[in-house]
């Protein structure tokens, strides 16, 4: 009975938090049009979440691509179709690896930064000070950060995929000797616009989800050092799980 009670309580807590997140999302969406009227704030956040994540995204993209090149070549060599490496790598990067890995990296770099920044603003009374100054922190702080993250994420995904393809080409063509012409021509022949759209839709969806989770956790963080730490951890964990769950749902819907 104790275990059942605990499970019920946990379920209730989960649903309450989900409800709070949904309500928060509604508030963010309602305030978004007015936040867009001050594009400078949003652009600043695109820089903070996007441009400052570029190094990690590009570095990881390069190595993910290079590993994909090695593994793909090893696999395709068994069937004597190494030239299909470009096609296989492009499809897997566009449809899966690009959006998912970028989202996980985004949650680790930009998501934690957003959550800890908002949590610290809460802990040091900066958000309260704004309220006293008759400035709505949702409109001034939360929404620009959400929009900045949601805009930056698809852009980062595109950059990740481009750099990863370069990595695949570097290993496959330059190191392992696949013919450059067939590598690119097969890729161009097989990849369709719908594949690019799939990656784009996933990038946008993951961007909205990861940014929302980060600002929600940070804004609602307990105003203590421990609370901020917990919010940061929850941001990474929840973002990762939600990204993978959403990835499955979107893949199932779009296949």
């Amino acid at each position, binding site marked *: 009975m104790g275990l059942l009670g605990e499970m019920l309580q946990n379920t209730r807590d989960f649903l309450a938090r989900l409800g709070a997140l949904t309500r928060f999302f509604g508030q963010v969406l309602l305030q978004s049009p007015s936040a867009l009227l001050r594009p400078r704030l949003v652009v600043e956040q695109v820089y903070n979440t996007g441009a400052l994540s570029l190094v990690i995204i590009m570095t990881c993209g390069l190595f993910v691509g290079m590993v994909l090149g090695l593994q793909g070549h090893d696999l395709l060599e068994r069937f004597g179709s190494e030239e299909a490496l470009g096609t296989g790598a492009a499809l897997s990067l566009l449809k899966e690896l690009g959006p998912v890995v970028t989202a996980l990296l985004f949650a680790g770099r930009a998501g934690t930064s957003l959550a800890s920044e908002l949590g610290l603003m809460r802990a040091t009374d900066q958000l*309260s*000070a704004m309220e006293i100054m008759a400035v709505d922190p949702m409109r001034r702080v939360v929404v620009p950060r959400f929009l900045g993250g949601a805009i930056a994420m698809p852009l980062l995904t595109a950059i990740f995929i481009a750099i990863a393809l370069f990595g695949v080409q570097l290993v496959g063509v330059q190191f392992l000797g696949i013919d450059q012409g067939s590598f690119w021509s097969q890729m161009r022949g097989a990849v369709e616009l719908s594949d690019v759209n799939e990656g784009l839709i996933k990038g946008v969806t993951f961007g909205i989800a990861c940014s929302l989770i980060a600002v929600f956790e940070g804004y609602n963080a307990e105003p203590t050092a421990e609370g901020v730490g917990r919010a940061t951890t929850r941001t990474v964990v929840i973002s990762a799980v939600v990204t993978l769950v959403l990835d499955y749902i979107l893949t199932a819907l779009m296949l």
Partner: protein
Amino acid sequence: MNQTSKPAGGTAPTADHRNVAALHGVDFSIDGKVIFRGLDIAIRRGEVTAIMGPSGTGKTTLLRLITGQLRADTGRVVVEGREVATLSRPELYAMRRRIGMLFQNGALLTDLDVFENVAFPLREHARLPERLVRNIVLSKLHAVGLRGAARLRPQQLSGGMARRVALARAIVMDPQLLLYDEPFAGLDPISMGVVLRLIKSLNDALGISSVVVTHDVREISQIADSSYILSDGQVVASGTPAELREHPSAVVHQFMEGLADGPVTFHYPAPDYPTQLLDRSEGA
């Protein structure tokens, strides 16, 4: 002499124009814990009003009730003649534009420098020419003696400087009411003296009303026109600092003299000490 005859008393606020803000019979509790019971406080226009009391008596909560960040369970909180609980969100924000508040830690926005922190309310609420914003901000920074620190980041400021910058920001919209939350906490004697003088001079020069929440009795007694002492969710005494020093209440005496033990006990409630030491069931 304006003393309360019983602990639950306090000077009953009068609903007249002399009060810039007033709390009438306010009850307030958080998570079942009673913070205020029938609290009556009047903030006189043009005066420095001190709210004193031991830590944990809800002094900061009182400020949050005045600013409408918290709502009283029962009773009325009135600011500038209007009941805070009845205000719509736009009306509440309009009221807050006439209130400045100095937080204990300054609460400066860490992503902006000193100048932009002070300019923040102006930029949010008024579309003023940049030159005018610059002149207003520099004049406010000059008033707190930190015009030369305009381009420093909040992280580069000492505690006293941060509080002075926050004070400049609090007065940048020319408020009618200034609320100070523990303005002297953690300051060295020089900074404390500076902040103390600033509170008084700003109050007099700008013709505003000030509420200072503090437990620094000696300092605030130098500038307060009237004081309230809170304990156990109620006003236990009110009057001028001199009157409070002569107050017969043991709690007031303990607080004003800074005595370690008294009605407010030194020890947090605990079981009998020898019994607890001999109890083998507890701990290793």
